[in-house]
């Protein structure tokens, strides 16, 4: 840790202490290192200085407190003003991101940098490294979607990567969401063989974990996008929730979709009510009010 007051590079700078004024709610006692770095940063910011040493002090402050959004902004401004090699900045960001998993200011900063670099080499690979630590990191997923759109990576291994993730954990809802984005996120209509493949992927996932919500939600989305009726999935749903053999019911989500399928068909409303009754009384009683509401809608429509 540099001691700025002893560093000749900083001797022309008069540090600017935090001005807390008269606000009893905001008086702050800092640790010494942080206080010093911040007071030098404040001093250079006050002069709007853009220099190498600004990069250094922002790096120190970010290291101690990566959530300090003002410092990130000033760092980006300085990097651009100095025309710095942004690939080097990327290496710094990789290291920071891995050590500060929860920080999100960093991902916005990275987006600004990558937009300027205009070359996505190594980027999806880096998100994979992040996902190895937390495969549901919301801001990293959102960054990955930005990458796909910005650099046209739709057909560059996204589906294959999702397949691997779902093989590792079929309950990873973030991966399911990204899958939907990659398959249906472009303007064009999706060909029938892809729709069939997606339905199959859901069936396989449900076979592994029938009580996993994600593929049940996903298949509803697929059918809707493809303009297919929910009953396309009736056979699969009945397999996991045979109404005539209640002991064999293995998924509340199967009951849920069956209730919709039967209600849609009109003449089988009774069966829809049976499915909802199972849900309210036995398979998902914590949400009994919701299931009873659905039953009420069906009764009111007949």
């Amino acid at each position, binding site marked *: 840790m540099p001691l700025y007051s002893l560093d000749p590079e900083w001797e022309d700078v008069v540090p600017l202490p935090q001005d807390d*004024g008269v*606000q009893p*709610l905001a008086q*702050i006692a800092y640790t010494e290192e942080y206080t010093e770095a911040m007071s030098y940063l404040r001093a250079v910011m006050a002069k709007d200085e853009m220099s190498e040493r600004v990069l250094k002090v922002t790096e120190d402050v970010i290291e*101690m407190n990566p959530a*300090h959004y003002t410092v990130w*902004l000033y760092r980006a401004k300085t990097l651009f003003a100095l025309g710095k090699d942004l690939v080097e900045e990327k290496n710094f960001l990789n290291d920071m991101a891995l050590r500060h998993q929860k920080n999100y200011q960093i991902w916005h900063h990275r987006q600004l940098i990558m937009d300027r670099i205009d070359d996505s080499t190594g980027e999806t690979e880096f998100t994979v490294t992040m996902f190895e630590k937390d495969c549901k990191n919301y801001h990293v997923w959102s960054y990955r979607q930005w990458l796909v759109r910005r650099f046209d990576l739709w057909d560059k291994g996204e589906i294959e990567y999702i397949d691997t993730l779902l093989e590792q954990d079929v309950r990873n809802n973030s991966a399911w*969401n990204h899958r*939907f984005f990659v398959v249906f996120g472009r303007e064009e209509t999706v060909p029938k063989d892809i729709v069939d493949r997606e339905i199959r992927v859901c069936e396989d996932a449900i076979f592994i974990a029938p009580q996993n919500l994600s593929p049940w939600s996903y298949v509803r989305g697929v059918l809707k996008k493809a303009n297919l009726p929910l009953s396309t999935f009736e056979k699969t749903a009945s397999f996991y929730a045979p109404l005539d053999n209640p002991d064999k019911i293995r998924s509340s989500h199967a009951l849920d979709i069956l209730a919709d399928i039967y209600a849609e068909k009109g003449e089988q409303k009774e069966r829809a009510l049976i499915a909802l009754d199972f849900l309210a009384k036995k398979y998902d009683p914590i949400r009994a009010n*919701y299931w009873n509401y659905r039953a009420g809608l069906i009764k009111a429509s007949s």
Partner: protein
Amino acid sequence: MANSLLHIDKHVSYIQSLDTRKDRLDYHLTSHLRLSGVYWGLTALHLLNHPTALPRDATIEFVKSCQHPNGGFGASPGHDAHILYTLSAIQILATVDALGSVSKTNVVSYVAGLQDKDTGCFAGDEWGEMDTRFIYCALSTLSLLGELKNPAIDVPKAISYILQCLNPDGGFGMAPSAESHAGQIFTCVGALVIAGVLKEEMSPDQIDLLGDWLCERQLPNGGLNGRPEKLEDVCYSWWVLSSLAMIEKLHWIDRDKLVEFILSCQDDEQGGIADRKGDMADVFHTVFGVAGLSLLGYEGLKEVDPVYCMPKEITESVLNGYKLV
């Protein structure tokens, strides 16, 4: 039912004590969200029926010291303006009945300047990070200032952006195609309600599907999570619950179990509420725990407004004040 009770007095002294712990590094390291911290503490105190537990004049002075010449507010003096803290500032001033102490025109022009005229979304600050949360911050701020109809803001465009973030599972994400997330749902539904277009823009079926997604978040231990397959958390409990309240489906979750869950996250000795049982309490989870209990009709608390996360009598009087003019 629950054998535990809400420790009102302990929570009040916990919140009051936050300001005096300045010798600790974590106090300092959170200066980047200080203004929001004041809003959380103040709102919790109001809901706990101790509205004067923080000094009013000093609170107003602090808020004013965070304002920039461009009209926006930073988290603390010396921090850049950001829409998150601008909303916190306006919420605090509305709560202590001091909206007149800052220039409205300034704040409105700051907020208006953050809207992307092409997409309708709002950026958080001058660097343009876009997120549905910021639309909520913008509309909430403007409505508390009575400036929702200001021609500098394109509300219909902001709403159309929000609708692009609606997912096939019924929820909303931070951007088009981003995963549904309880926090983002709160901001999207809140924005629709503030703009007065929830029922115009969402069909009954869409509202039901959203309600389905939301009440699906309740876990057997009574707590709610923010996304499928994640852990329960007091703050997510609030975002899910307030969203359910806004679409009038609050009764779709098991009330008693959630009350019990929130109470179990209290620090029984020092006061304060944690994200989940056994973790360290903080002011963020304290306000959302108390607000959640208020929304569930827990005895002895002031009624909370699910749209603004502020005392309902305050939002009502502020908003009604604009209607009269």
